[in-house]
């Protein structure tokens, strides 16, 4: 592992994109930043601007209006960027997969590097996904 890759893996800045979510996954993602789970141990920070981000966390079902915004965000992000789909809706579409406004799961819109299934995934599951991502 080279120096560049080492630094990249040691300092991931997270950007959170919530689609048409039921809010459960959002709450579980924020749980990871609380004292009990604390992802800052791994050098991760939540940032407000996509220009600073290294990881794009996508949760919730992506409907037709979200699709445009998600594509725009992905183009605005500085590369390399890792995309993580969180929750059943982000990974497959979940119960919304047959819906009228549904515009496909995240991996049909942008390339996804990691999937974290669950409805909602527990914070432990999200941390396990992060660790797997770091070991990749």
């Amino acid at each position, binding site marked *: 592992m080279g*120096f560049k890759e080492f630094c990249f893996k040691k300092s991931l800045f997270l950007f959170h994109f919530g689609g048409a979510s039921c809010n459960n996954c959002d709450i579980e993602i924020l749980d990871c930043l609380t004292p009990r789970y604390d992802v800052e141990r791994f050098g991760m920070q939540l*940032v407000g601007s996509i220009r600073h981000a290294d990881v794009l966390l996508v949760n919730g079902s992506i409907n037709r209006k979200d699709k445009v915004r998600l594509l725009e965000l992905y183009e*605005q992000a*500085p590369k390399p960027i890792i995309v993580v789909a969180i929750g059943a809706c982000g990974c497959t579409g979940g119960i919304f997969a047959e819906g009228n406004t549904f515009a496909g799961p995240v991996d049909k819109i942008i390339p996804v590097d990691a999937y974290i299934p669950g409805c909602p995934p527990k914070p432990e599951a999200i941390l396990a996904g992060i660790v797997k991502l770091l070991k990749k």
Partner: protein
Amino acid sequence: MLKELFYYLIYPGFLFVAVAGGFLSFFDRKITAWVQFRKGPPLLQPFYDFFKLLLVKETILPAKGSKITFLLAPVFGLFGATVSSVLILLPLLGIKTGFTGDVIVIFYLLTIPSLTYIIGALASGNPLAAIGASREMKLILSYELSFLLMLIAIIIKGGMSISLYDIINAQNTGNAFIGSISGVILFIVSMFCLQAKLGLVPFDMAEAETEITHGLFIEYSGTPYAIIKLTKYIMLFTLPAFIIALFMKGFNLTGIGILWTILKVLAVVLILTLIRNTNPRVRIGQAMRFFFIWMNLLAIIAIVLIFLGY
């Protein structure tokens, strides 16, 4: 010539303050984590952040902004921070520089990073960055007067000398300035000015993450953002060092003095961190009122007390 280059680039200059500022930034984040009952980042985290942004990430230029100004502004900010750190650290380390009146030069140089943030933000053409820039301008207008009054009070206390070396010497022959009533009042004023200069929480409305998503720095990515981070690390070391020169007898790098020096720096940064962790963000109007009325009043009271001999 070679000696000056060494001063500016390596020992009291760029390299030393960057590394020291990086460790202070780690200290700040670790204390924040402990206050919130978290574990906090690893020791070298600020350096990982810096090298990741510098080497790995792509730099995106704004389509509808002034690209050259956008890229050059952080570089000038870094220059301003480095030169001010050298001018502050040379007298602190006991190296007599050749000119008096450096306190005034330092006062102007310390403003340059904030000014370049404003210029870079306005050059990016982003409306949220423009809001951040306007807030930062108002913040500069409010805290600079208090900072200047604080410096004037220190100059009067140090026997009307405008050289940092003489101010440190005046404390080394007599008492540290913080040991008197006026000194304590001035220290309070200077702490709040530092908080505003560093953009820490009660006065971070220019880069508020939650409302205008990093405001001033919203369009920066990759290398320019790494330079901004580096400027912030340097300022986090330079400003506490300046306060130590003005109030606490400066540095003493012989024997046990090294320990005291490190403890002084850590204590000042600890105060800043605790203020930042126990206060909410104020609105820009509240910040202006706070500085214009209360901090200026405190500074003027301190000047009167100095003339009365306290």
